[in-house]
């Protein structure tokens, strides 16, 4: 993926750049809003990571300008401001996702992956499949092989989210946001409980397991472990 990082703190910039390059991405970095704007308006990127507070041109302003110019780039906003208002403001100004500092690199990575995936969302398939697991969004039904699996509505949403992100790591906060619409972090293992219940139904009786735990980060749905 080609990723643009606009971040004025040199240490964060260095850390994120190195991490992204290690994962095999091509990364350009800009130190301020003006430099970032020049890069993003002259070259093509899959994802832009934009810090909210930038010298020269504010992150929020930059995103608005980008959206006004019709740029299709996926934007992940970074911020030290954790207020819910700021989050809402960031998302309404045109950012696709929002991450509060300090963050775990794995969380950033998972979100970037989910973003790049979303660019292809235009053609949403009606039937989501992985191996012999099938989720039919028109019928609201789930089958594995010949067996029909009965799921509660939240389990169904959870599975659909996993199936839309096959091969990608999804984190606990991402699941809470996308499946439960919860923006705070419960201090208990509620998500784990729900995933294990889903696992019991989807993977339990079968030899090949599809939902895998990524230790300390979240989950990944894939054929290989």
């Amino acid at each position, binding site marked *: 993926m080609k990723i643009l990082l606009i971040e004025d703190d040199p240490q964060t910039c260095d850390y994120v750049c190195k991490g992204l390059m290690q994962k095999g991405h091509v990364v350009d970095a800009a130190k301020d809003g003006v430099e970032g704007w020049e890069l993003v308006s002259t070259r093509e990127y899959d994802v832009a990571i934009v810090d909210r507070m930038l010298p020269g041109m504010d992150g929020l302003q930059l995103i608005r300008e980008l959206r006004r110019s019709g740029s299709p780039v996926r934007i992940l906003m970074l911020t030290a401001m954790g*207020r819910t*208002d700021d989050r809402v403001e960031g998302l309404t100004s045109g950012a696709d996702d929002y991450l509060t500092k300090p963050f775990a690199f794995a969380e950033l990575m998972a979100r970037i992956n989910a973003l790049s995936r979303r660019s292809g969302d235009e053609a949403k398939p009606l039937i989501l499949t992985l191996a012999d697991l099938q989720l039919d969004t028109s019928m609201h039904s789930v089958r594995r092989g010949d067996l029909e699996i009965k799921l509660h509505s939240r389990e169904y949403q959870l599975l659909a989210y996993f199936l839309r992100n096959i091969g990608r790591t999804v984190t606990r906060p991402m699941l809470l946001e996308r499946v*439960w619409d919860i923006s705070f972090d419960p*201090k208990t293992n*509620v998500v784990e409980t729900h995933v294990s219940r889903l696992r019991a139904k989807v993977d339990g009786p079968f030899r090949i397991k599809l939902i895998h735990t990524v230790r300390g980060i979240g989950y990944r749905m894939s054929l290989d472990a």
Partner: protein
Amino acid sequence: MPSFLRAVWFRNATLYAVLFLAVASLAGVLAYRNVESGLQHAVIDAVAVDQGAMMAEFEVGGLPALTEAVTERLAETSGVERFYALETSRTPALSGNIAFMPASSVFEGSVMPTAQNGGTTALPIHAIGSTVEFAGGRLFVGRNVTALDTTLGILRESFVLASALLFLAALALGVALGLHSERRIRAMAVDMRRVVESGMKDRMTSSRRSDEYERLADDINIMLDRLHGLMEGIRHVTTNIAHDLRTPLSRLRQNLEGLQSASAFGGRRNAALAKCVSEVDSVNNTFEALLRIAEIEDGSRRKAFRATDLSILAVELEELYADFAGSAGLKLTGDFEYGVRVWGDRDLLLQMGANLIENAIRHASAGGVIRIELKTSGRQAIVSVSDAGPGIPPAEHDKVFRRLYKGEASRGGAGQGLGLSLVAAIADLHFAKVKLLDNNPGLWVEIVLPLYSGSENGEP
């Protein structure tokens, strides 16, 4: 300029005295004018009666009769009390006891008595009278009013004296009252300085008189209590933040020192690093929760309030936590009234419920039941979460809402001591009340929220 000239009490006393004087003067002038005109009219009436009688005689007997009437009256008049003058075209042109015939029909002014009639004096005399014309001449009848002038003069002096007395009395009273207020205020100021010097611990003294100063002192004491509470809260939070951070920070330091010594490598190194990260996360969590509480307390999120269905949130929460409670060996049961709407913020209300349920799960003893209920009563929605855990002793009920407070029971436990502070802040934002009750055994938390009234564009 002497300081008392700038004092409010002095300015007020002077102002009141001047106002008093103005009102008294006005009243005096009005009363004087009234008396003056009354007395003058009495004279004018007497003159008119006398003149009328003389003219009646003229009607009957003509000029000789009138001349005789004048002569008669002049004979009866002693000294210079009454004045008569008759002017005819015959000689002598002017008869009577004054030297000149006043010109105006109604006369008020000085007349000059003639010398021949008791003529002891040639000084002009203040008189009031009237002149009538008849065929062939004019008749003047007048009265000496110097006695009346004297009376009015005494009256004027009395009024001036009374006004001066009133002015002095008003000034004295104003100064006395002003000095009294000033003394009370100065005493309060001394009191306040004492309170400030005591670090807001002392209180204003009570004067046992239940007047407005006393009530003001009471209100100041209420304000001081609140201020003191807030200051204590800040001191408490500061101490606790420092205390709470010391533990993870010192562990972090130990881990980092261990890594620095280079004896750690491979698996041990990774384990130490993971510990470092988790300590940093714990510090970060504390700060995040504190910031969130501060954000909620500033009230600006009320702008994003909308009609929110508590019943749906309750169902979502029950669904979210039922299995988790089950995995902890607890039973979570819900009993909800449907369609209960309040004016609020979905995210925050959800978090409030989540905090209460997590608290209950954390503290409930295994095998216990956690009940979530939602019902309405009058104009209120009542949400309750109850458990059968150890509960909170009544003595701690007020303290548990303080930031970073950890009760005796949970000291050293996993909690940050911020869960209930957050609940209290969210409830406050929603104009709701939090009640802690005894579930016998366990804790019964009740949140009482005002129901949404139905207008889409404003608060309930």
